[in-house]
């Protein structure tokens, strides 16, 4: 059970001076700029949930996660994880957490992978038998057999992510925090990681909180979504409802055989879609496929001339979030 209660985090950054001796003057100056990274966020996550935590860059996702696992202390508000505060009882809480930061590794860079697991086992004071079993299971599920003897620095990104996942699960934590676990991976590796995560959640009943920029991650994994923008939580619920709210915004580029005759704008002005651009033979329109169908748009457009080619595009999720909230 994870409870975040009215979390706030304000970073106080010194204002950087310009000009001569800027470093010294910045050091001595008392001027600060307060940046609110997280603003009054509250939520509760129950055991076994798979929650996607999404929002644009700089929205405060990582800051929230770092407060949840005790790395950062909130300016105000409180976190409890299974009844303990990660700030006050850090050592006790982190024992129940598995954390993966997609852009950093927790493995020992220059040593063979196997060594990292051995070291982690003694860090977490795992019993020998438990460690052997756990590593055996993880090695099999995450297919690490062939990687064990290779120094971590020589692993590919996808291999390293699998190893990092195994490392975060070695002490059998109840809760997993994953900060962009699929970042930089190719399609195959992404799918692999998703399959593992699904298994961790459904078979091993791990509670998982995941941040991502990849909508497919959310769609395939998360039963619940929390959307954050400018440090505030703006949506908390299931993906379907969020979809309903957003609809299916689509951008269509329609290419005609000949140049479009002027006056087309008047003709299209009373439509269920908006013209957002026109270039020579190509007209770009934006519509919401909840309100109108692509066929309807094409039907109407075909009155302007012979259509040669069409191109459909769904704008990326973060753009939409920016627009609707």
């Amino acid at each position, binding site marked *: 059970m994870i409870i975040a209660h009215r979390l706030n985090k304000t970073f106080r950054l010194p204002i950087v001076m310009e000009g001569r001796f800027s470093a010294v003057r910045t050091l001595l100056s008392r001027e600060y700029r307060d940046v609110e990274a997280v603003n009054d966020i509250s939520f509760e996550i129950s055991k076994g949930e798979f929650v996607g935590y999404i929002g644009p860059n700089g929205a405060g996702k990582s800051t929230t996660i770092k407060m949840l*696992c005790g790395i950062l202390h909130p300016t105000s508000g409180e976190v409890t994880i299974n009844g303990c505060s990660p700030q006050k009882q850090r050592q006790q809480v982190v024992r129940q957490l598995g954390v993966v930061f997609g852009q950093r590794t927790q493995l*020992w860079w*220059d040593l063979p992978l196997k060594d990292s697991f051995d070291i982690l086992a003694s*860090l977490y004071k795992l019993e020998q038998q438990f460690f052997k079993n756990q590593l055996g299971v993880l090695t099999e599920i995450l297919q690490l057999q062939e990687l064990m003897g290779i120094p971590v620095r020589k692993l590919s990104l996808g291999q390293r992510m699998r190893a990092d996942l195994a490392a975060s699960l070695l002490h059998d934590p109840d809760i997993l925090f994953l900060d962009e676990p699929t970042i930089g991976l190719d399609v195959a590796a992404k799918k692999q990681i998703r399959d593992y995560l699904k298994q961790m959640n459904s078979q091993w009943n791990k509670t998982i909180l995941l941040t991502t920029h990849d909508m497919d991650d959310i769609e395939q994994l998360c039963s619940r979504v929390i959307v954050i923008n400018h440090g505030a939580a703006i949506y908390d619920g299931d993906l379907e409802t969020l979809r309903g709210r957003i609809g299916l915004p689509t951008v269509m580029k329609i290419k005609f055989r000949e140049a479009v005759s002027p006056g087309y704008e008047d003709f299209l002005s009373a439509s269920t879609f908006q013209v957002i651009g026109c270039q020579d033979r190509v007209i770009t329109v934006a519509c919401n496929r909840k309100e109108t169908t692509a066929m309807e748009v094409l039907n109407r457009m075909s009155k302007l001339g012979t259509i040669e080619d069409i191109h459909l595009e769904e704008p990326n999720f973060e753009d939409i979030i920016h627009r609707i909230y």
Partner: protein
Amino acid sequence: MSWIHIYFRLAGASLRSQMQYKFNFILSTLLVFLMFGLELMTVSIIIYKFNGIKGWSVYEAGYLFAIMMFVRAFYRIIAGEINGFEKYLVQGMLDQLLLRPMPVLLVLVTRNFRPMAGELVLGTTTMSICLSYLIENKQATLWAIPCSLAVIVSGTIITLAIGLATATVGFWTHRIDELQRITDNAASIASQYPLSIYPKWMRITLLTVLPMGFTSYMPSLYVIRGELGLWILPATMLLAVALLLGALSFWKLGLRHYQSTGT
């Protein structure tokens, strides 16, 4: 007990990592040997030529030098990464350490573990030469040997405390390399020589604000010159422990102000 086990486990891992780059490892050990060896030789030749400085013979000065050699070596062995702490703050590397179920400091000090072989060999050689000369000339007795050990222990603790306190300042200022160069590096080099050669303001600084004068100079006054009295050794040890406790609670306060970095 298990913490000590974990310390060696982590330190061993760090050492094995460095062995992946054997050439670099051997070269840096040799360089230390060469650097400090040259410095020691130059200084002793000069002191010898002038028949001592401010009443300190070449063997007495050599003794101070050796004490600091040991202090620096043990400080770096125990807590090398404290001296390079800035990168943990600026690059957010501290995140990972905070996720381990043990004191952050324990994980930190085992990173980049170095055995400091160059310093230890040079320190032992210098110390043996100087002490045996002083004992032969009845200026000191065998009692100086256990005393020297005590001085090295208290000196290491003082240096560690000052280093830790300096690193902690970084939680607020982020950049600490410059500050460390003064408190950690310059002050320990200054303590290689008798404090009496420095101007008054510097002597006072090294005995108050930045009490590195207590690592070697003050206790050595008793050990090899019979000044002050035996009380200076326990007094120094007391000061060392007090400084370390102070530095540790300052460190705990600092951790609350850690800001990490964006991703």
